[in-house]
């Protein structure tokens, strides 16, 4: 049972605002991903929870107890660093046993716990190895075991797999998810990779400039981004800027009837919700490139104002470079000043060879 509550957390470094009025509630056993571009304050939030940075203001509570002023060694949190930070003068066993020794556990129990932790991360029998004899993935597993062996209430991971190759990253991500669910440990996972967040999280918190843009389940984040930033940050997204006039978003190549006030706005359409139909004569947009991904074809088109869009089409249809096409959106969202104004689907009457209601594709 561990519940993490963060209230109006702020952190200033001299004149830079690293974290600005950040609040979050993490339920027992939940895995929340902090997702955002580099410099958005993810690490700073995690480090404040771990006790490595002092908040400028705000509260951090674990199971209702305010831990904001406690030093890291007195907090029930366990941190896994991006650079694994294993102690190279100790072997794997001693790395994991160090925290247990500080707690003055009996020798036999330490041995039993360390071995169990090694088994848990799939490194049974690696205790006698030196840390530099391990691969990058194995080192991160040891770092994870080092934290888990102490049974922390909150597990904090700061881009733990960022320095590993794609394949390994995907495997470790699944293992972490597995272990986390088995132990039911409340976890905060920092990443700048959207695929990692989508694959791992019960809930994603999208950060920008130290502020929370949106906190929701992965599918909600993907299908109902509440800000233009989130729409552009998660998955692929087309943005078209134009004016709304008399209830219609008017762009020379794409007009959509929309329930919004007049004025400049940005229309967002996912590639899988953007269909193409062949246009007669010189009308429509120009196909710039067509990339075959096997399961689908991604067609890049250019609008008259120079905007480039991506449309996901079925492999049944070939689009040659230079071909003219007409855009047929099936689902859209309209943003003004980064805020969502309205989202909707275009009626079935504009029949399009689109992919229907936006499958989750990244």
């Amino acid at each position, binding site marked *: 049972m561990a519940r993490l509550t963060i209230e109006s957390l702020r952190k200033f470094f001299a004149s830079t605002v690293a974290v600005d009025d950040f609040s979050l509630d993490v339920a027992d056993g939940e895995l929340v991903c902090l997702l955002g571009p580099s410099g958005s304050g993810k690490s700073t939030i995690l480090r404040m929870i*771990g006790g*490595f940075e002092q908040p400028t203001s705000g509260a951090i509570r674990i199971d209702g107890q305010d831990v904001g002023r406690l030093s890291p*060694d007195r907090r029930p949190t366990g941190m896994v660093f991006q*650079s694994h930070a*294993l102690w190279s*003068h100790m072997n794997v066993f001693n790395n994991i046993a*160090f925290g247990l020794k500080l707690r003055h556990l009996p020798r036999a129990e330490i041995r039993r716990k360390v071995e169990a932790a090694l088994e848990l991360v799939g490194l049974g029998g690696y205790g006698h190895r030196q840390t530099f004899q391990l691969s990058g993935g194995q080192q991160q597993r040891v770092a994870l075991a*080092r*934290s888990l062996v*102490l049974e922390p209430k909150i597990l904090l991971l700061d881009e733990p797999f960022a320095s590993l190759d794609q394949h390994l990253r995907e495997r470790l991500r699944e293992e972490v998810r597995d272990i986390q669910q088995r132990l039911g440990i409340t976890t905060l996972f920092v990443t700048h990779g959207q695929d990692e967040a989508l694959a791992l999280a019960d809930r994603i918190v999208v950060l920008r400039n130290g502020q929370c843009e949106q906190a929701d389940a992965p599918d909600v984040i993907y299908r109902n981004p509440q800000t233009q930033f989130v729409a552009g940050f998660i998955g692929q997204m087309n943005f078209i800027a134009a004016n709304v006039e008399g209830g219609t978003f008017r762009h020379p190549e794409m007009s959509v009837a929309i329930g919004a006030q007049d004025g400049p706005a940005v229309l967002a359409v996912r590639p899988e919700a953007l269909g193409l139909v062949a246009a007669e004569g010189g009308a429509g947009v120009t196909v710039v490139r067509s990339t075959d991904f096997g399961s689908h074809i991604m067609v890049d088109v250019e609008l008259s104002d120079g905007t480039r869009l991506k449309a996901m089409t079925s492999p049944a249809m070939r689009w040659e470079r230079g071909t003219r096409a007409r855009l047929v959106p099936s689902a859209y969202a309209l943003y003004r000043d980064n805020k969502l104004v309205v989202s909707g689907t275009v009626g079935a009457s504009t029949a399009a060879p689109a992919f229907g209601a936006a499958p989750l594709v990244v």
Partner: protein
Amino acid sequence: MIRTYSSTSGRFDWTGFLFAVVLAIVIAVPLLVVFTWAFTEIWRYPAVIPQKFGLRFWNQTLSRADVWDALSISLQLSATVTALSALICLPAAYAFARMKFPGRDLFFLSFLASHAFPKFGLLVAIAAIFLQLNLIATFWGVVLIQLVGTLMLMIWIPVAAFQAVDRRMEEAARDVGAGPLRVFWSITLPQAGPTIFAAVLLTFVSTFYETEGAWLIGAPQIRTMPVLMINFINNQVVIQYGAVLSVILWVPSFIALMFARRVIGTGAFAKGFGA
């Protein structure tokens, strides 16, 4: 051993060879001469090789009580000075490397300042003060004067060593429940260990060979090995005494070198300097 090679062909690298030869002459020949003298009984001009080898002067030197006294004093002094220097400088070096406090840079400079003055002038000034404090010709007087000389080495190198320790490692130790002192003892010190060991070794050896301070403050009661050697050379025409003492004095630095080699061999020495 010096490997000579050229990048393009198998041609002999004359520049490298000459360089090696010159180095060998400059370093090895004086050593060889001193060694030879130490084991010589008769060696008259113009012979290239001594007329008579023998251990007579070794017996004579080693049977002198003042030699053993000086050796004992030297070892005690070096050990005390090194221990005190480590005790004072290592925590200070850690503070300089890791902490931010007002006047940090000024404080750091003051540690190094003792080496910015002409040394002998400083020593004379200190001697004048020691005279009033009744520290002249006492063991602790010499300890104090030699301690000042070790500060720079014992600060500068450990600061570099501590700065090279990954902060995340220290944070990870805090995270699993270690307090600041425990982190320093169990993580920082072992990580910086090889480099700090080298600094301690260098301090010990340089204190062992230190003469000016030991002579100025210690004379006449406290006589260290190097001071004794200078006396021998100044007062006696017999070269062999000096040569034998030189060889004896060479032993600690040789042992230190062997230790240092093992440390450097692990590559940790260079790592301590942030390489």
